[in-house]
């Protein structure tokens, strides 16, 4: 995949694969192009060259809403709730359209998901009144409500307390156990290290490392570029 914004080349010949039921971590300095990769996968923006293949199906040229229905769910780094709808209705949208559920099944699924994400008591509150952190939770809940096969998580652990981060990791592990494939962009290392099966590190749109979390973190280049540890 490649993508340029004008003269700025954001990702360049980037290729990677994620196995079914895997938690795949994506790390990289700010501006490395991680969010852009998500936008390319979810179809929010179109790639200049390259292809996204989900379950053997080529997604190139397929608009975002169809990709969602085919099982790609995502969260936004900067939350984008439907501010005038209630939290519950926010979920209902993706359960209905991305998850293609109807009626009682959708209600049940959304109510469960809200509880799982710790928003159970805010179900009927307008999403616009949520705090930043709750909005981030809502991002996750809404993506989950769409019953995705592939879940793209963009920095959802930032700002969580240790305890909350642990809960989150547990939740993600549970999702994986249900067979959901997860790609997770995260700067909160202890959280992602706790659950990722494999990781990739981007820098200036290029992959500088990929592999098991521990191995990646030991990589000198990664330590220098990303952690700022000269060794």
């Amino acid at each position: 995949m490649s993508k340029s914004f004008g003269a700025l080349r954001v990702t360049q010949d980037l290729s990677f694969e994620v196995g079914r039921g895997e938690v795949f971590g994506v790390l990289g300095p700010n501006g490395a192009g991680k969010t852009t990769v998500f936008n390319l996968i979810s179809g929010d923006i179109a790639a200049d060259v390259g292809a996204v293949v989900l379950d053997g199906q080529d997604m190139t040229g397929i608009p975002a809403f169809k990709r969602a229905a085919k099982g790609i769910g995502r969260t936004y780094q900067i939350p984008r709730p439907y501010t005038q709808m209630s939290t519950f209705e926010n979920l209902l949208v993706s359960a209905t359209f991305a998850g293609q559920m109807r009626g009682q099944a959708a209600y049940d699924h959304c109510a469960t998901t809200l509880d799982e994400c710790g928003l159970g008591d805010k179900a009927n509150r307008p999403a616009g009144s949520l705090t930043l952190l709750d909005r981030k939770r809502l991002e996750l809940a809404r993506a989950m409500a769409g019953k995705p096969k592939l879940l793209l998580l963009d920095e959802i652990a930032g700002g969580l307390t240790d305890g909350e981060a642990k809960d989150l990791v547990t939740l993600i592990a549970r999702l994986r156990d249900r067979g959901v494939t997860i790609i997770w962009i995260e700067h909160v290392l202890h959280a992602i290290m706790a659950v990722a099966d494999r990781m990739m590190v981007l820098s200036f749109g290029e992959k500088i490392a990929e592999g098991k979390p521990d191995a990646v973190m030991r990589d000198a280049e990664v330590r220098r570029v990303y952690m700022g540890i000269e060794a």
Partner: protein
Amino acid sequence: MTDPHFATVHRHTSSSRIAIGCGLLLVLAIPSMPFWASSGHIRWAVELGCFIAIAQMWNLLAGYGGMVSVGQQAFIGLGGYALFVLVTLFGVDPFLAVPLSVILPALVAAPAYMLLRRLDGPYFAIGTWVLAEVLRLITSNIGAVNAGSGMTLKAMAKYSAHQREIGLTLLVALLLLLTVGGTYLLLRSRLGLALTAMRDDAVAASSQGVNVGRMRFSVYLLAAVGTGLAGAIYFMAQLRISPTSGFDPNWSSICIFIVMVGGIGRLEGPIIGALLYFFATRLFGQYGSAYLVVLGLLTLVVAIRAPTGLWGLMTRLRPWPWFPTGYILTKG
């Protein structure tokens, strides 16, 4: 209920059951008016019905679709002209021509949307206005429809006053069922969810599986058809149409006033707003400029003090919705 996650979702309330029941009865009562009401009241019902329909369509477009238009007069004029052309030039029966008149607005709305779809917010608004002006200017240059001097619906004279009233009231009842009832059903359906979601954030909605492009298009088209139908009925009652009366920007002013004062983004708003506007104009219209100054200031006060409109104020006092479209999770 052993399943702890069996969710209970409420949509209707007792107020809504009463309101919808009453509303249906009222609408169904309209066609019976020729048998008991005075001609004057029938005419009121027809005009009021058209205002409600036009405002409700604007509300669907602006309040739910997020597409603020100041050019809905385009479709009022097209609906009206379609009727006059069908009747006068093609000799179609007027009452039969009314439902056929929505074809023209639909045919124009489709390409118009293609042009406007890339615009949002104020861009879209101005775009619709220009489009309406373009239609007005083109119409006033077409000789076959009498160009600038407009057309007259002489064919109505072949019906008796009573027959005309029966026809018109039937059409208005149908119009209200389609526009108010139709919008309500649309909003309660899964499409309603999509519509509200994309109004709040179109990008997020499309990544959640909502086909934003098609939804917007459908809403634009539906609003055009509903507005066109109302336009045809309105001008059938007025008997005359001209480019300046059909494509009068004042229609947008009326929509804005009714919906904003009534309450935007709620189905109840346009109904309350239309009632207020209609009776205020009839009661105080003869006070000329003083009345209009007050009307203007009222709009200003609503914009500042009560952005949710009269319906917003009413719900704050008594939260009794007539047309609930939301989902309230009571147990989950």
